[in-house]
């Protein structure tokens, strides 16, 4: 910088001995192009992966090196063992089912009219995020048929086959009236002609309390017959159970059974608006009266889709609903690529449709099916969002899978990053064989 205007002539670099000038340049260009990707990969994939492996050997504070303790807990902690079991179920069931259902749909859509509409409908769930789909299914799976679509559907079908009743629920108002809504409520005391039995019921659901009923009355004794009353034994504040009081109404439409000594039904009668009923011309003897089970429509209580037992199958159904479309589209593409003449040739040779499918279509589709199967295998191992969205708090334990367990142990209250990292490494190890398989297949195809 001393202000000399001299330009020192250096010998041209052409003579640089070991590497030709172009090579260095080439490397630089390559490095330049690789650098952005390398930086991002290193920062967001390689470094976190290595850090996770290291972290998995430390305890939850991150200060103490604990060797394989976290990995031991992986197989002894109940929560994590359940997660591993559930993931095994997912792996065994879902890829097979999705591939099979996708295949069926793909083959069928080739044959039906409106196939585009059908394909669109099946593929549509793919356009929804898994979490949103999970929320949808969570609502559809609600147990009460009034609120959950799935149970509403079952209930609608069931209602066709069951008799409606005037009530769905009730209880005897005293210990003298026993039974259930299935076998009816029987008055313990025996009755004979001329008696006036009174059967009090309570706990009738508010919306079912009949509006057209009249104040209950105790009927006059019937000569050679049995007359009685069935009434709603409740007054605000409770009233006196077992006593027919002012202000209590009869229950109309109740089927009353007269049961003989053997327990068989001798006669039935219906109650009037004031709750009275009568059996005329009853022979002498001991009888029992009961509010018959026919009074009670057995309401459909709803399948407990979100309960601890069914939760994993429920989530799997929702998951298949999402992914069946993907499988169908990929397999349909494969199907379209199968040369028609081969199929024609098989048919000409006298093969049945089933044989054509078994012996020609399926083998030719093999590679495509493998792609779908392996993609699903990887997807299923890392399934997370839909489980989180569907399982209610009381069933998260039963619905747990490895990826969810990883998140739950690392965050979400437990905050054990050591154990969480161990779960992550375990998941990574599980995915590796599938990945290798996939890479090998890619190589072969290229």
């Amino acid at each position, binding site marked *: 910088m001393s202000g000399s205007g001299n330009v020192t002539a250096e010998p041209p670099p052409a003579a640089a001995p070991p590497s030709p000038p172009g090579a260095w340049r080439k490397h630089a*260009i390559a490095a330049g192009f690789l650098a952005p990707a390398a930086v991002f990969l290193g920062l967001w994939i390689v470094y976190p992966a290595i850090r996770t492996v290291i972290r998995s050997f430390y305890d939850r504070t991150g200060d103490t090196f604990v060797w394989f303790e976290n990995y031991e807990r992986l197989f002894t902690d109940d929560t994590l063992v359940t997660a591993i079991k559930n993931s095994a179920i997912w792996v065994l069931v879902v890829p097979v089912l999705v591939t099979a259902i996708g295949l069926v749909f793909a083959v069928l859509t080739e044959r039906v009219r409106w196939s585009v509409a059908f394909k669109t409908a099946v593929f549509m769930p793919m356009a929804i995020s898994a979490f949103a789909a999970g929320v949808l299914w969570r609502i559809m799976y609600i147990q009460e048929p009034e609120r959950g679509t799935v149970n509403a559907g079952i209930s609608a079908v069931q209602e066709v086959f069951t008799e409606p009743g005037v009530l769905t629920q009730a209880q005897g108002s005293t210990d003298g009236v026993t039974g259930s809504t299935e076998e009816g409520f029987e008055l313990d005391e025996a009755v004979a002609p001329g008696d006036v039995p009174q059967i009090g019921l309570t706990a009738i659901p508010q*919306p079912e309390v009949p509006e057209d009923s009249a104040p209950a009355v105790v009927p006059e004794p019937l000569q050679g017959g049995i007359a009685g009353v069935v009434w709603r034994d409740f007054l605000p504040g409770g009233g006196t159970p077992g006593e027919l009081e002012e202000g209590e109404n009869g229950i109309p439409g109740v089927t009353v059974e007269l049961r003989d000594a053997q327990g068989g039904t001798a006669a039935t009668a219906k109650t009037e608006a004031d709750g009275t009923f009568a059996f005329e011309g009853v022979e002498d003897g001991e009888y029992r009266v009961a509010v018959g089970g026919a009074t009670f429509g057995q309401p459909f209580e709803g399948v407990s889709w979100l309960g601890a037992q069914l939760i994993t199958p429920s989530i799997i159904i929702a998951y298949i609903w999402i992914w069946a479309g993907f499988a169908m589209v990929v397999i349909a593409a494969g199907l379209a690529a199968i040369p028609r003449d081969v199929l024609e040739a098989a048919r000409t040779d006298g093969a049945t449709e089933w044989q054509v499918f078994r012996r020609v279509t399926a083998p030719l589709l093999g590679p495509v099916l493998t792609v779908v199967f392996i993609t699903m295998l990887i997807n299923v191992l890392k399934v997370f969002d839909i489980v989180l969205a569907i399982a209610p708090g009381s069933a998260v334990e039963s619905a747990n899978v490895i990826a969810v367990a990883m998140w739950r142990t690392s965050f979400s209250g437990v905050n054990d990053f050591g154990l969480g990292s161990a779960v992550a490494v375990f998941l990574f190890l599980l995915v590796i064989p599938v990945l290798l398989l996939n890479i090998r297949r890619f190589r072969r195809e290229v």
Partner: protein
Amino acid sequence: MRTRTRTFALLAVLAALVLALAAAGCGGDDGDGNGNGEGDTQAVPEGVSGNVAIMGVWTGDEQAAFEAVLDGFTEINPDVTVNYNPAGDQLPTVLATAVEGGNPPDIATLPQPGLMRDFAGRGELQPIDFAADQIGENFSESWVELGTVDGTLYGLFYKGANKSTIWYNVGAFEGAGVEPPETWDALLEAAGTLQAYGVPAYSIGGADGWTLTDLFENIYLRTAGPDLYDQLSSHEIPWTHESVITALEEMAKIVGDTENIAGGTQSALQTDFPTSVTRVFADPPEAAMVIEGDFVGGVVTESTNAEPETGFNVFPFPSVNDSAPAVMGGGDAVVLFTENEAAQALIEYLATPEAAELWAEQGGFSSPNQNLDPEIYPDEITRTTASALAEAEVFRFDLSDLQPAAFGGTVGQGLFKLFQDFLRNPDDAQGIAQQMEQAAARAYG
């Protein structure tokens, strides 16, 4: 060497990008302030400057209300920029990640003192003794103690919750002819009458385990008394202690009364808290009562058509076997992670009655601040539940929130899960107590 320069330029841009990203994730500047030593207790701190990053649990309406409080602060200190980041229910996750990454916010509001103890134990928190005078003046002893870990003050309970309340459908109570009960036996009897009337007595939000732990804690505080309650809180007595069994057996009188629970046990297990409230105030009602804290009121006004006092009302959790009046509740603790001067000033501000007033007048808020005038609360129901909280002679914090999070605060684990198991099978108090003890022993490790 044009390629070379270009490569470097590219790398430089990338590096800048990475740095920018990292900076964007940063909580805020660290400041250099040491605590201001002013002894002037009630004065609202003024004249500080800087940025304060707050991470909190409050979202939606609560976020708007809290931001109004923050505006009150920035009005006095115009040179401070406060940035509120609502993390909602995921706060433990988000915050744990930020802290693990060495990048905590200046201030966080924690829904569980257990979480505060976790962080304090790991040395992540800054003491807030600079505000000790304000806090001592405005808050009762029990709240100060709750904010103290090993003799050092770390937490200020800005927002409280009274969880010793039972909300009922006024129409159902009138129809069945029952009065709000004052004793446990009267409650059980009223439940029987409600059932005979045709409305199940209880709506239970069993999908959320915390509704069940709250019920247990209310019973336990009354059957075992505050001293045993404290000992169980700190796990000095085991969960297999006979007082726990007694409380579980009392609790079974409600959760075991399956015919009297809206939809039965299975349905209760799948009902989340908001639904458990709306079921009570639906038309026709699916149940008559929901046993939960003062925040039920907000859910009722937001999601149902019930009107206060004519449609819904509240009574205090009844006394069991002549137990003295007691309140079990919760609260959100404000804690400090950095030595930021502006953040310190904000904490001092939040300890004042003025700051409590700003939220209280908007409703949906109970302040533990005893110098807040109850007339500020917008309606009678809030006034009742909130002043019960600030004036309670016996106040105990939600026991499950005082446990290590893995035992007392995690969905699908520990107490939440075991109380759900108890709801499923209320006959086996002994067995469930044993499992609780095992889980507690593991968590306390």
